């Protein structure tokens, strides 16, 4: 199977049903995309497939063939992505484990809705964070969008 990941093609010899996550992590050795639940509940494994956020832990690799796959490593090559810069500016991560997925989800949201409101953020940012960085994720997204949060959701 041939995969196009971060603008590079990779030939992989794996079972068609192996989830894309494990091909990325263990076959291609790109560790930025994380495993946490394996059932598409938490979003730590979020990658972009043709620009759409996808939970790679439940996506058979065969379904990604012929599509453009972007991982956290490829979100911005050689320069920091604006979302990554905002994450640093707002000191968002705590343990950081969920943040690859959070950043991929946020980048996709801002691509589609450059000025998301809080409802847009709530709908798009369903990734779990156990450390509790939600308030800062929201603040960082509003910062990028040049919008202000509603009073109840600062």
């Amino acid at each position: 199977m041939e995969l196009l990941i971060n603008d590079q093609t990779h030939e992989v010899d794996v079972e068609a049903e192996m989830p894309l996550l494990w091909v990325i992590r263990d076959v291609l050795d790109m560790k930025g995309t994380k495993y946490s639940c394996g059932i598409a509940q938490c979003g730590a494994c979020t990658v972009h497939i043709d620009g759409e956020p996808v939970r790679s832990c439940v996506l058979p690799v065969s379904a990604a063939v012929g599509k453009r796959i972007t991982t956290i490593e490829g979100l911005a090559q050689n320069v920091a992505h604006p979302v990554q810069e905002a994450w640093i500016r707002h000191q968002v991560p705590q343990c950081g484990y969920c943040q690859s997925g959070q950043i991929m989800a946020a980048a996709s949201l801002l691509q589609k809705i450059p000025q998301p409101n809080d409802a847009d953020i709530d709908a798009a940012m369903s990734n779990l964070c156990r450390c509790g960085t939600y308030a800062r994720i929201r603040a960082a997204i509003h910062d990028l969008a040049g919008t202000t949060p509603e009073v109840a959701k600062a």
Partner: protein
Amino acid sequence: MNKPVNSTRRQFLLASAAVSGGFALGFSLPNNKARAAEAADPTRVNIWVEVAPDDTVTIRYARSEMGQGSFTSAPQLVADELDANWDQVKIVYVDVNEHLRNNRAWGDMATVGSRTIRASQEALRTAGATARAMLVSAAAQQWSVPANEITVQNGIVAHAASGKQSGFGALAALAATQPVPETVALKDPSAWSIIGQSVPRRDIPASTDGSQVYGIDVSLPGMVYAAIAQAPVFGGKLSTFNDASARGMRGIIDIFAIDDDSALVVVADNWWRAQQALARVEITWDERGNGSVDDASIRAFFQEGLAATDAAPLPNSAGDVDAALSSAAKVLEADYYTPYLSHTPMEPMGATVQIGADHVQVWTSTQSADGVATEVAGALGVPPETVIVHRVQAGGGFGRRGGTGDYGKQAALIAAKLPMDTPVKLLWTREEDTQHGFYRPLAMYRLKAGLDADNKIVGWRTRIASGSLLGQMRGIPLPNGVDAMATEGFTRLPYLVDNQDHSYKQTPTHVPIGFWRTVGWSQTPFAREQFIDELAHAAGEDPLSFRLRHMAEDELSRHILQVAADNAGWTTAPAAGVFRGIATTEPYGSFTAAVVELSVDASGGIKVHRIVQAINSGHVVNPDNVVAQLQGATVWALSAAMWGEINIERGRVRQANFHDYRVLRMAEMPKVDVVLAPTGGFWGGVGEPGQAPLLPAFCNALFAATGKRFRELPLYHQGFRLV
């Protein structure tokens, strides 16, 4: 330290001084028990300062980083006393093996109990001040000027009268030859320039581009992968297994039982393949007699604990509660229940182990790096000094990774069954994590108190039934039968009550229990701070003024309670339909209070409008990081309030993954205002204290809104949800 100066790197070990005893360049720690005991003293200096010719100051960090921020804040303490230029400071981890080979010279590496700063601050500041003194001494010698005329600021050593000045690097070689001062003066807090600053956390950039390495991310040549199925009933053993249909699957290397038949393991060339094969193995388990334990039997056992006549009295019991209650104008009694909870850090459990001829290497996310070495060494029967633990960031800890003796040991036992030098990465599924945790203990509380005619509390009785972390997990005999963790919050009430009688009955079950973020303080205030609210309500008094009226004038809780109330506008009525609850706690050497504002709709939808959290941690090292810790505490408290529970049925855990072990999501995160109100004068913790008052403040607000008291968690059972 007995490691000689590394002249090949042209770097110079500048100082590593001890609070007592001397600990310096070329110093060798004798390998005897007395020295080992001294080295275990948590006040001992556990850090080096190293200065390179290019002025780079390397500060070593001994404990773990799991998101709590002390990889940055602990070195701030060193750098401030050193008067270093923070931009020239580089932070590296202490080498665990070096630590073990030198009788644990850096002291306690365990990153638990919100104590990284409070237990290490004096040693870390002393290390910085000592290094500074040696730089000054070197400059005095080189410039032939009196040391007391030399100033150090922002990485520059200067002598005003002669106009001489230097960076640290040019003085490092000479400084390293200076005698280590036996005592150094530490700065007055008013002189701090790096302590108290919200400097950005050093580990954050790597967490934004995928380059941060966690235990799960270790990749080694020739590495194989292990999937594991542990006995579903705690304490169970493997009875039989049939792996006929799994053996021939692609990539499968071996299938075997480990750890006294408590788990079955599949090793493969890829973790997903190992997991697929494991699902095909037919396993029967011996439940070892625990297969009929369930929530109902556990609850009955705890009810017995509440009524037991042989409970252990807490030392603060005083007066005659029976007499006080019999003469009281009003007597209230209430039972509270808090369930087992799972930690569920985002990174699942796992470890990579490689056994070589001379050394064992381990890569794992842990809160206890030296504890891992001990655990692996014990599993393999080798000296801990031969175990090399590589340090990585932990994908959340929250008490789950504090030396539990499970996944690290398992990985070592798996590696021991493979050819020498084969690295093997063990990874648990989320389901294994949920079902094989060390859970926040289930606890039940029975509180009884009386008010006199003036609505003063005249007597207070507490009975706690709970497992014992110290007794069950650590095997430590309980002093006078009392577990210190299970009774937190009741061993010293901030309220003045003449007649008090508190007691604890240990109620051990087969369910493993552990240190869950905020530990006893995550649950005891649920009872104490709701009960004080119940008393206030019975007295017909405002819950804030009722609390304050029962506190001594010099009670520090008064201050933080008032700060929280003031910031919430407690004396101003909230908007129509909005209700407030308040609570105060004294956890981990800090004082925390919270006000929760919420409204409840007719269908049980709870909208949290705002949470005000206030903390007095004495001193504050990195304010923004403290704010982050308290923001995070909200997620823990609200998750526990609404959905958190681990249920036991047929001896095993019912929940499996995030779909049935619900935790707070973005859309449910309320607005949180964190107020830092440090009074100075002491060093309190910040990682755990924030959560302590939130649960009762939330439930007190719910009472204000509904008129109903909710004494059992989680609240979704009562039809509530967050909107």
